[in-house]
């Protein structure tokens, strides 16, 4: 054995990589070679020093320090990647085996988690005693308001009635958002149109009242003008009141029918009706116990038109197909009815 070979063995020796035979060969050589003996000693000493280097610790918890950032991050799903042949610094384990199924599974799992949460929240909400929030006048208005759009709706919609309640994005999400206010709710709908099944099969909210949830998939504006409604005003999903099929119309839920769909929100003491124009750019609002009509831009809730404050009720709200005209009937407290219309061009209300 020469010294070079001896060196190699000694190196491996300090790593515990030699078998018995190799060890004894190496040690015999060292016995006969002072240079190598010195080298072995240095090597051994160095290795020992290195092994005794302090196991330093971070002076504060690193995970605690990054927790805020982790909150904002989600782990990436598994992806397949081609394996690099040559060495070099790859940041992750080279492994071409893809985990494609896992990727989709994770997304679906997450999605179903969201939906499940929405369903649960929705179920909880619909078991609340909403009944006390409604009284007769409101029901009438609700009934009237609902009847009107139904008459205008394409027939397919009416027939789709209870089923169409199912694929509403509003239900699950609305439930989820309950208590956070209508504004948040509507935004949520706009963002996450994932349909839920169960929201619709919920309990009857109100006997005979059946206030369908406003379920325009992505047309619900943020009614900043109507903050008075307050946080208790969450739109409860799904009427599911079999007693009043017209009330459970799919108008609320089928996104393609949001054009003339109306929706009803309840607040503690007011009933608000809203209708989005066919193109969704505007939304008309009336309040059940006033005869006033307001029209806002759906996108930002800015006010476009407001009629004079007056008493009475507004019914028969209807948008023209081009969204430029809104027609309705104002019935004053004496019972007189006037047919009115608002025109986008003039931004005025006139008698028809």
């Amino acid at each position, binding site marked *: 054995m020469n010294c070079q070979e001896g060196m190699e063995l000694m190196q491996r020796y300090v790593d515990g990589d030699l078998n018995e035979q190799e060890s004894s060969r190496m040690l015999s050589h060292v016995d006969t070679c002072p240079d190598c003996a010195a080298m072995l000693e240095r090597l051994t000493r160095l290795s020992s020093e290195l092994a005794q280097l302090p196991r330093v610790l*971070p002076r504060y918890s690193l995970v605690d320090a990054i927790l805020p950032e982790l909150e904002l991050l989600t782990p990436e799903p598994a992806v397949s990647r081609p394996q690099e042949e040559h060495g070099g610094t790859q940041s992750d384990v080279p492994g071409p085996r893809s985990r494609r199924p896992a990727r989709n599974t994770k997304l679906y799992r997450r999605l179903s988690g969201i939906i499940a949460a929405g369903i649960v929240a929705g179920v909880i909400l619909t078991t609340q005693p909403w009944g006390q929030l409604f009284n007769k006048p409101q029901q009438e208005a609700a009934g009237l308001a609902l009847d009107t759009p139904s008459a205008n709706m394409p027939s397919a919609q009416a027939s789709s009635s209870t089923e169409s309640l199912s694929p509403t994005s509003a239900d699950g999400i609305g439930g989820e958002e309950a208590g956070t206010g209508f504004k948040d709710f509507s935004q949520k709908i706009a963002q996450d149109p994932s349909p839920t099944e169960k929201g619709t099969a919920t309990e009857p909210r109100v006997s005979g009242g059946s206030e369908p949830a406003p379920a325009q998939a992505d047309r619900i504006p943020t009614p900043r003008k109507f903050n008075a409604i307050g946080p208790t005003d969450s739109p409860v999903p799904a009427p599911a009141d079999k007693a009043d099929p017209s009330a459970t119309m799919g108008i609320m839920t089928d996104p393609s029918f949001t054009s003339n769909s109306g929706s009803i929100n309840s607040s503690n003491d007011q009933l608000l009706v809203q209708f989005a124009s066919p193109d969704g750019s505007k939304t008309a609002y009336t309040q059940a116990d006033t005869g006033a009509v307001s029209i806002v831009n759906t996108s930002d809730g800015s006010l476009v038109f407001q009629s004079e404050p007056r008493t009475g009720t507004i019914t028969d709200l209807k948008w023209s197909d081009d969204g430029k005209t809104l027609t309705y009937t104002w019935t004053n407290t004496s019972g007189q009815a006037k047919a009115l219309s608002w025109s986008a061009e003039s931004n005025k209300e006139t008698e028809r």
Partner: protein
Amino acid sequence: MVEPELIKAAQAGDREALVTLLRDIEQQVYRTAYYLLNHEQDALDASQEALIRIYTKINSYEEKAQFRTWVQRIVTNICIDKFRRKRPSVSIDEHDLVFHSSADVETEVLSAYAAEDIREAIGKLPDHHRTVVVLRYLQDFSYNEIAESLNLPLNTVKSYLFRARQQLQFLLHDYQKGGVRG
């Protein structure tokens, strides 16, 4: 050793498990960063970066490799990147030496160098040599584990390690003699 169940749970989407996992490996991550970068603040920064990357990339870990080698790969990569644009290393000559000398310098092979001397010396090694030494001695990795972590052939790992030790000897031995580094 990290529990395999914890890893599985973390990959299954259990966020709490993932955070616990990070806590379990936090120290080993820092330790490597510290010895690679030779600078506490840099090491703290690099470690956090590594932990975040481990968090986001957790699903790319595959069971074929050991978890700890995968973790070390991430932290070494980050450190090597960081390094490239880094501060110049301190020359050994400028360093304040602590001699534990004996009278006979010639026969005194190595005295007990202060750890920081060794650390400094490690810091003067080229990237790959340094990394191999750190994994070998601070993480107690075997040749194979080092190879897996750095994606290097086994022989290359040995070659780097052996060479690194020779260089370290030379650096430290020089100290001992009080010689000026050439």
